[in-house]
């Protein structure tokens, strides 16, 4: 397998070209924006909860980013749907990285986990779930 094929393997390209969950949600129960300070990419995440309020019913995202960040956020939306808020608030990034399944340098890692971070911020704001400091500050910019 060439390095190209490794990095842009088919599933990544598929999610990149046909992102799942791409769009804006009008009346989201939870919402956050965030950005990757290294490249300036911005992502918005919208969440609706199930009737019990404990479960993620739907997730959408908008914003622009590189193939890795778009594909990773697209995969993320599929991954979290139907799972409990608490579970996702605690989801280790490794689970997402495994799903992505490509070798990432530190700088591309930041692309890959941006969407997850913004999702965690959204849950934190709506539900008060804990936000480990690794993820803090992503949404600091909403005022500007």
């Amino acid at each position, binding site marked *: 397998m060439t390095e*190209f094929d490794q*990095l842009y393997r088919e599933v990544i390209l598929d999610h990149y070209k046909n992102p799942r969950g791409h769009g804006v949600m009008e009346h989201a129960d939870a919402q956050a924006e965030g950005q990757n300070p290294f*490249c300036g990419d911005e992502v918005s995440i919208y969440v609706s909860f199930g009737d019990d309020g404990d479960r993620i019913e739907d997730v959408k995202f908008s914003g622009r980013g*590189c193939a890795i960040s778009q594909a990773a956020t697209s995969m993320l939306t599929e991954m979290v749907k139907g799972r409990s808020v608490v579970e996702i608030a605690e989801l280790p990034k490794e689970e997402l990285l495994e799903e992505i399944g490509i070798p990432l340098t530190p700088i591309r890692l930041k692309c890959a986990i941006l969407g997850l971070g913004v999702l965690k911020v959204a849950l934190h704001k709506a539900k008060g779930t804990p936000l480990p400091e690794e993820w803090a500050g992503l949404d600091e910019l909403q005022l500007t």
Partner: protein
Amino acid sequence: MAVTAKPKLDARSIRADFPIFEQQFHGKPLSFLDSAASAQKPRQVLDAMRAFYETSYANVHRGVYQLAERATEAYEGARQTICSFVNADSTREIIFTRQATEALNLVAYSWGLNNLGPGDVVVVTELEHHSNFVPWQYIAGRTGAELRLIRIDDAGELELDNLDELAAGGNIKVVAANYVSNSIGTVNPVERLSAWAHEHGAIMVVDAAQAAPHRPVDVQALDCDFLALSSHKLCGPTGVGALWGRRELLEKMEPFNLGGHMIRKVTLERTTWGELPYKFEAGTGPIAEAVGFAAAIDYIGRVGLEAIEEHEQTLVTNALERMIEIDGIVTYGPPPERRAGIISFNLDGIHPHDVAQILDLDGVAIRAGHHCCQPLMSRFNVAATNRASFYLYTVPEEIDRLVEGLHKVKRMLG
């Protein structure tokens, strides 16, 4: 300047001076098209620093012994080299800093904190690198002064027609601009801005970090008041830069960093400052780095800045011609004759990170990002661009590789 025969530059033989090109990346030779971020270093510079450490190293200025004298001579000799390089009047006007960024902070803090207040206006351009933008924004904020922007047109050139509107209802105290834009290569009309600044009684601060590697910089001709340089952009080591400042201004200014070497006398009650330039050089200086900086200036001086500029212009002209043929490409910036060897561009719908990543797999290194110019990115309504930048060691084949690479990116992700 006297009319001389057309300068010539042999990029291939220059390239042999740079050890970095001896290795392969991903099984391919390296096309380093990111010199605007930082240039590679020739053996001559590395040798000069090594020899200095091995034969002449000691802390400078106060030592009576021979080794300290040698080190002092080398350090002050480097100051002289920089003084000539920017055509300054006196070595007292040359202050060693960590880089251009610190040079600009020195002016913003030391001049700005004590001379700005409510009603005053600081003017910067939309083209600025954050290093000549954020310090002014911050110090303006602290002092109650106002920050205003000289806007650019769609070609990335300063809009100078409405300068007087910009001046309305405020007391212009500082005009700060880069000489060459690191993002899109625009060469700015600094002389004209200096004249305008001085008409208003303002100081003119020039960020020459990106100009000095590529074209002659002459503080007399620019008629500015401060000018900032970075060594690492012109084939010198990291860790050193310089501020040139007009002596009358430097003399009236408070110091910035405080500590050893910059004092005259210290008592519990009161400290008096040393002479220029030491007043602004607290602590042990970037001694070996200054030696390397001077060696780099000598190196590019031997090649000739006019020759470098011409070489880059040929490359840019050629590259632009070929790049605009790529379907869906957008390039930013002015025509080749008014820009340095820098091309910023986007491939429609493809994120710069992906472009840079795929090029890298073929050994072509370009930069993708906001280039520390977020206000400019906002102006062009993008989050990031790709940037290819050329220097004295760039050979035409590297442009072939860049263009081929871009076609490949389109095939893969388009």
